[in-house]
């Protein structure tokens, strides 16, 4: 077979060794390169804990993705001018610099029947859709100047999670697992939880390890008592019998390893068997809510049909960060009564009132409960909670009673350790269409999350094909103004 190699590729390969060696000191723990020379005796557990670049402010992240993109104009970003001009065409000056290519066109300005109030010492605005979260106002750090590229949900969700518009790059959680390793050898460092009964529509590419080794990908925990498929041993095999089988396998592998010291795969496989065995007990326990008190369950809304799904997910998230899982990636679930596919998510192109009332009700109490619970357990200072979405929604209407996608200006918030609380960073114009101060792109959010975990996004690198790849692609700046 003829393998064609361009001069450029050859030069890259030649430079790989020299360049790779030179940059190894930039990674926590001294560096890690895609395919290092290794042998069984020198096998290094890829999930072994690694030191951050500088002292971390938080140990864990709960990355809460509101799937379908809520209208933050109807939750946090109060715009009296929108109410005043509702029913009129959007003034042309507001559309300058934006390119709309919508199915429904640019409709009249649309205001929902919200009532707004300021909460806490900070005076943060909340609509009547989030009465419980409003009580946590002073624990939140708002970014009201979020921007992204808004083509379609799947593409923008990919950018939200991986920093790129095409599949292939690692998700933020995978970078965290790669850079910091695992803080609990009995659980994966990166876990995905989702509302509803099925995996989110955008799929596992959003928690992929991309070009990083597969060991760093997110592990999706399914709803129900057995979170990992095929994890429980068959009924006819007892734990003792299984342990004995693994011990025998281990002994045989050691004999084999002694004659083949270069075989790192064998050591890795033995390691995987042991992790899987340990997880048979630890993973179900980590998400078992039976020992939680009734008061805790009620705090998350498990006693109410409307909030039970997301309450269960977020209570599981708390249990995972309590067990030192580094990155918990939560995706909000569909609400079946709202319709099929996109209509069931936050994607309110029509009937926004009905859609957002149901979704806000489903998340409001659970997310407020999560913040209060983490605080009461002393975990909030060690945890970062990020409310994100792939984009926001437009102030102009669509279909008469819905809103279109808005990548130009929307609100996200952070809570937890290392932040200035009760502050708002950036702002949108008077109608909430475009960011007019301090834009924060997904890369900037990623850089800030990594910073709080003690990682310099410019130095968190992985050498691939002679290039030093980093989580923020070639962009990203830490939003220092929101850091304590």
């Amino acid at each position, binding site marked *: 077979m003829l393998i064609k190699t361009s001069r450029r590729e050859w030069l890259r390969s030649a430079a790989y060794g020299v360049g790779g060696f030179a940059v190894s000191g930039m990674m926590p723990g001294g560096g890690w390169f895609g395919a290092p020379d290794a042998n069984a005796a020198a096998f290094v557990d890829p999930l072994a804990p690694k030191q951050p670049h500088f002292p971390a402010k938080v140990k864990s992240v709960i990355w809460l993705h509101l799937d379908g993109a809520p209208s933050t104009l109807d939750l946090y970003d109060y715009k009296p001018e929108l109410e005043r001009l509702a029913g009129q065409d959007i003034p042309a000056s507001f559309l300058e610099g934006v390119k709309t290519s919508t*199915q429904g066109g640019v409709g009249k300005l649309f205001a929902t029947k919200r009532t707004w109030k300021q909460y806490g010492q900070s005076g943060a605005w909340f609509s009547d859709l989030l009465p419980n979260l409003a009580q946590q106002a002073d624990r939140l750090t708002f970014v009201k100047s979020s921007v992204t590229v808004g083509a379609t949900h799947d593409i923008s969700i990919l950018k939200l999670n991986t920093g790129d518009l095409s599949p292939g790059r690692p998700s933020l959680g995978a970078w965290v697992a790669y850079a910091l390793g695992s803080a609990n050898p009995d659980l994966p460092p990166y876990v995905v939880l989702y509302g509803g009964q099925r995996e989110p529509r955008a799929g596992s590419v959003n928690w992929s390890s991309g070009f990083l080794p597969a060991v760093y990908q997110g592990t999706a925990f399914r709803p129900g008592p057995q979170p990992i498929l095929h994890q429980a041993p068959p009924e006819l095999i007892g734990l003792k019998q299984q342990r004995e089988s693994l011990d025998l396998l281990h002994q045989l592998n050691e004999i084999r390893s002694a004659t083949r010291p270069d075989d790192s795969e064998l050591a890795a496989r033995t390691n995987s068997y042991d992790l899987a065995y340990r997880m048979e007990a630890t993973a179900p326990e980590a998400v078992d809510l039976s020992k939680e008190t009734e008061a805790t369950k009620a705090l998350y809304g498990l006693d109410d049909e409307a909030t039970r799904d997301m309450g269960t997910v977020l209570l599981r998230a708390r249990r995972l960060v309590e067990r030192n899982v580094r990155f918990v990636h939560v995706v909000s679930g569909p609400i079946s009564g709202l319709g099929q596919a996109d209509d069931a998510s936050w994607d309110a192109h029509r009937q926004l009132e009905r859609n957002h009332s149901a979704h806000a009700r489903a998340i409001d109490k659970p997310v407020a409960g999560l913040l209060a619970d983490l605080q009461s357990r002393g975990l909030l200072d060690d945890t970062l909670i990020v409310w994100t979405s792939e984009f926001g929604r437009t102030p102009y209407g669509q279909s008469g009673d819905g809103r279109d996608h808005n990548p130009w200006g929307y609100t996200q918030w952070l809570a937890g350790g290392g932040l200035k609380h009760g502050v708002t960073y950036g702002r949108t114009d008077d109608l909430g269409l475009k960011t007019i101060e301090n834009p924060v792109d997904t890369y900037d959010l990623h850089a800030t999350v990594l910073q709080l975990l003690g990682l310099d996004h410019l130095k968190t690198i992985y050498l691939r094909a002679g290039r030093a790849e980093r989580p923020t692609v070639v*962009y990203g700046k830490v939003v220092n103004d929101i850091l304590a």
Partner: protein
Amino acid sequence: MQKSVMSRTPTYRNFVSRSALCAVLVATPALAALDLRDYDDDLMRDLEKTIKYFEPDITARNAQAAKEDAEVLLDGFRYTEDYFAKKGKDDAVAISRDGSRLVADVVQNVEKGDFDAAAASAREATQVCKSCHEIYKPRLAR
């Protein structure tokens, strides 16, 4: 009143992004009348790919690849400068020149072996590209 946090560190990058934001507000009324369909799309795709290789090649201390990237980018900035000069768009011409200057900085620093400084210039070049795209390639919704 709700507390608000303003950026207090006027780095070059901040300057570029703020300038871009102002430029969007000032320049876009004319954009509607500006036909950019004769811009070489293939070249732009190549530039967008290359700018994503540029800093990673530099950080990996792959001098030869970085210089090859620089060559592609310099060609692109020159083409863009000429293109917008013919259209009478002085802001885009100035941005293109900024880009060329930064890429030239990168090459100088790579030749000196100062890869950290080169990577910093490459990051600024990325921002320069973005600042022009904010005006002439507005972000698309749907």
